């Protein structure tokens, strides 16, 4: 079974699917959606089967496929996964079908036909699988850049009112990062040429290089800046709130859920093993950015009035935790950081989806336009609460396990940074509960009063007064509870949040050996037991 080209299929299937969907005749929107759903479910199945074929205690990279690609440069179309990449593929497999389901009607009203939306979505899936599965640095770079294109069009064609601005900003930031990384990739190639006699892009060969510390620092920075923009770490973050706010919900879910994780994945896969000396040298600086980002972005999240921007800022805060876990250089914290990448995709994915469902009902992204929704849409409110609690890492939800591992694993090595970061959990409770209280609790407000008839303005005024509790609930036409389709989208994520919150060990077993191997490359694995 291990010779079966799992990864190649996982790239080819959605890519072909994208072409098929794009080629469908106009007016066959439903068929386009069905194909997209079928293909994405097939990818999920492949991801699950690939996980079963994967032996956590076996070779570092498994399920490998390699085809000669550009022989002159020593570049191969080489795929393979370790435990870290594998769990990210599982996350992609889970999220894309749900995004298809959640976007079922959203794309109908866009300026372009729905099939275009789903074609880009499938292409994006193919690129995302590629970027995690590549074990050739040049191939990784190509996927890293190619991934921008479908996302650019998803934001630019199907996004909110300021979509053009957001899309260009997204593209520009990523471009700058990509360029700097390309320079570093070429630099790495030059070093490999001088050390091995002939140039190579193969990750395993590059890992063995013994690079001069000063050169390491330069190359580290090249990769680091690209990844820090992608992840994003403060102060490289300002593109994300715009993109997150303007992207269509499905795009936003994949953007913060998966695309941004390429940044933190890159830290672990490329920065640490390839440039161990530089990683150790720069670790304190990165930790400063990480911990400052946790608090800074959390405070900013509290100050947002736009729900999608708020969720984007919470993600920036969470990326700080992930970076802390990676650059603390202990097995516990590193394992926690990788699990955090998965859990954040699930939790924030759900948060974005629910916020999107609310926005679809009320037609506004402003928190101030909502209030008392829980009474009219208890299921929606319940899903919102579960997503929020996962976001603030309440024990019993998946995020607790990862945040706890990151913090407890970082503490022995970096007590001061960890203690400051721990204060972030108070802020997390604040930004989530503030948003939840303002939208879900209290008397009806904003859009819930809009349909109430001619007296509505008067009642709205009353609702802001002290007698608000006595105001009779106003009947509303717009805010209905979750439909069956929406429930089907939300339920798997809620189940994963609680399931992985109670029993996270299967994922930890996949992740830990890969993290241990990575840290032994850095030579700073002080915490973990070697397997």
């Amino acid at each position, binding site marked *: 079974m291990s010779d079966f080209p799992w990864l190649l299929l996982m790239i080819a299937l959605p890519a072909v699917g994208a072409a098929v969907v794009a080629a469908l005749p106009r007016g066959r929107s439903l068929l386009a959606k069905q194909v997209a759903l079928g293909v994405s479910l097939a990818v999920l199945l492949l991801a699950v089967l690939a996980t079963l074929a994967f032996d956590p205690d076996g070779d570092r990279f498994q399920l490998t496929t390699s085809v000669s690609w550009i022989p002159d440069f020593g570049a191969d179309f080489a795929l393979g996964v370790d435990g870290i990449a594998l769990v990210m593929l599982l996350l992609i497999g889970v999220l894309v079908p749900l995004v298809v389901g959640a976007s079922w009607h959203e794309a109908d009203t866009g300026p372009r036909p729905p099939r275009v939306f789903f074609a880009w979505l499938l292409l994006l899936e193919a690129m995302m699988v590629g970027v995690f599965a590549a074990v050739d640095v040049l191939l990784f770079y190509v996927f890293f850049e190619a991934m921008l294109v479908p996302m650019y069009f998803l934001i630019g064609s199907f996004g909110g009112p300021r979509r053009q601005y957001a899309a260009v900003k997204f593209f520009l930031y990523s471009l700058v990062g990509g360029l700097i990384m390309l320079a570093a990739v070429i*630099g790495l190639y030059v070093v490999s040429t001088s050390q091995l006699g002939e140039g190579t892009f193969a990750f395993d060969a590059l890992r063995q290089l013994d690079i001069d510390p000063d*050169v390491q620092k330069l190359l580290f920075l090249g990769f680091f800046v690209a990844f820090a923009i992608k992840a994003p770490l403060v102060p490289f973050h300002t593109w994300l709130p715009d993109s997150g706010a303007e992207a269509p919900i499905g795009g936003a879910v994949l953007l913060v859920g998966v695309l941004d994780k390429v940044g933190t994945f890159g830290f672990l896969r490329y920065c640490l093993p390839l440039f161990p000396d530089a990683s150790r040298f720069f670790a304190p600086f990165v930790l400063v950015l990480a911990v400052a980002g946790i608090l800074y972005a959390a405070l900013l999240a509290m100050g947002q009035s736009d729900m999608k921007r708020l969720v984007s800022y919470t993600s920036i805060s969470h990326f700080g935790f992930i970076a802390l876990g990676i650059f603390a250089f202990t097995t516990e914290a590193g394992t926690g950081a990788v699990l955090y990448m998965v859990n954040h995709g699930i939790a924030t994915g759900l948060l974005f989806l629910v916020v999107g469902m609310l926005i679809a009902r009320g037609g506004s992204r402003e928190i101030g336009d909502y209030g008392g929704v829980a*009474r009219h849409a208890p299921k929606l409110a319940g899903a919102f609460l579960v997503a929020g609690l996962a976001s603030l890492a309440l024990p019993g939800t998946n995020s607790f396990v990862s945040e706890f591992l990151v913090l407890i*694993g970082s503490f022995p090595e970096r007590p001061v940074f960890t203690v400051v970061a721990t204060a972030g*959990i*108070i802020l997390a409770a604040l930004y989530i509960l503030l948003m939840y209280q303002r939208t879900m609790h209290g008397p009806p407000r904003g859009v819930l009063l809009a349909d109430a008839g001619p007296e509505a303005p008067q009642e709205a005024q009353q609702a802001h007064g002290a007698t608000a*509790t006595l105001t009779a609930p106003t009947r509303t036409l717009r805010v209905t509870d979750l439909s069956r389709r929406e429930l089907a989208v939300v339920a798997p994520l809620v189940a994963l949040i609680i399931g992985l919150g109670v029993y996270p060990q299967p994922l930890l077993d996949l992740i830990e050996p890969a993290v241990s191997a990575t840290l032994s490359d850095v030579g700073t694995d002080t915490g973990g037991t070697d397997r």
Partner: protein
Amino acid sequence: MGTVPAEGLLAASWLLIALPLAGAAVLLLGGRRTDRWGHLLGTATVVAAFVLAVACTVQLAGTDGRSADVELFTFISAGDLDVTAGLLYDPLSAVFALLITGVGSLIHVYSIGYMAHDPARRRFFAYLNLFVAAMLLLVLGNSYVALYVGWEGVGLASYLLIAFWYTRPAAATAAKKAFIMNRVGDVGLAIAIFIMFAQLGTTSYAGVHGTVGTLAGGTITAIGLLLLLGACGKSGQFPLQAWLPDAMEGPTPVSALIHAATMVTAGVYLIARSAPIYDLTPTARAVVLAVGALTLLVGAIAGCAYDDIKKVLAYSTVSQIGYMFLAVGLGPAGYVAGLAHLLAHGFFKAGLFLGAGSVMHAMDDSVDMRRFGGLWRKLPVTFATFGLGYLALIGFPFLSGYFTKDAIIEAALDRDDVWGWVLGGVAVLGAGLTAFYMTRLMLMTFFGRARWEDGLHPHESPTVMTAPMVVLAVGSVFSGALLVSVVPLSGWLEPVFGEPEEAAHVVAPALVGLVVTVVMLLGVLAAWLFVGRREVPVTAPVRVSPVTRAARNALYADAVNESLFMRPGQWLTRALVWFDNRGVDGAVNGLAAGLGGSSSRLGRAQTGFVRTYALGMLGGAVMVAGALLAVTAG
């Protein structure tokens, strides 16, 4: 502490948590289909858990070493961290399990009546069940991580229940406040756990308590203080006490169950459970004592000034838990006294809150004691049960509070130093204040002229509500004597805290009892002079002394929090949002404009991108390649 793997019923003690958890899941997921019998299921799971807890405790009594370990599954294992989901059933956790499920069952039964007309009664029972499950996990877990999971789970349940009537802005805000202030404490608990793992490599009770002696004194003190921060958050102790009175926005059974009998005692549990740590750090113990003594007074003073019956009881809870902190802060001499007071308090305070709920039920949900009065005639059962709870709380001779509070005061005096006298004095003074505010409450509510709103016809509550009140009243009367003399708690808890040593009393217990009783009677007399003699005005007097005004504002705790944290926090947030939009983003946009054209041009310059991109790619690559060649060649 010899811990043996559990056998028989004890091996199934995980069902204690699973039963109410399953109840909550069924009620929340089942939706309206379960409306008709949801409250019955919710009550049944907790009663079943109580029966199981009794059976487990009986079996535990016959087990060697009176301690049973239940390993369930690997929760988190990565690197050197290995957290097993497991339970520890020992005398301490058994006491709490009985209290939680016992009082919990009574409150569930009461709620059937109290919430009968609420359309969301099923949701209420779901949350109550969730709370019971989380609280049981908190006390039954065998590691600090398990405790932490239950700890925050309790915080969630409390949040949901305070915000139960979430369309009221006050309820929604109170719930959020409770959660946030609890989380401040949780940070302390979390960091304590980090230190344990970093220094000892384990988080289980057995592991930590077995090896904590190898640590430096400063580290142990740090752990003790951080645990105390957590305990203060959950138990509403100074300086994190301000959330507890606001939590009265929840339905009254919630106040009885969570904010009197169980959740707020979690802090006392944490400190008692961590006795092996606190035994090694006199400094942390001294801080526990100071927190307890201070909170005892703060709560009692605030309790004297409020006109809201539930707020008075809430501040009374703050104050009584101060007594318990004072007791456990005394170390080995006080653990048992603190826990006995905790159990007795569980009975009488739950009874008092249920009684208050019954009064509110009769008075159309009013909580303003200035509009009560003369209710003893209309609500005979409520009056009788409430009255017994009242006598128990103020420490009327031979009722439960008399025994347990005296035991704490004796233990304080037995320190035989200046601080022993100070703490003992504070505790005696607190007893006088308690008698004052509770007598004031009794007089304003049940005696005097009826000052009811027009059109009210108070009526006694249905049996389903009064029956639990009667049971709790019986408990309030006898539990003290039972726990101190008949079936001594000290003997039962011996495997946890060691052999109770017969202290050489500095002051004869009889004399202590006499002094406390006299002070208590003075408090009652003062209340009679200030409140009982005169007509109670229906609106609170405005021109009052600064002391009264301070007490009415709970000694300005909210004002301090607001001006120290909330407002600066809001300013900081606003400033940062401005800075991020103008400063960081502006700088980057400006940079982009300087490098490749203005940001307004970017909006339409898509076609130019590919060329710029290619050019930049080439330029960057050439530069780095050149630099590298130079480095490697040179």
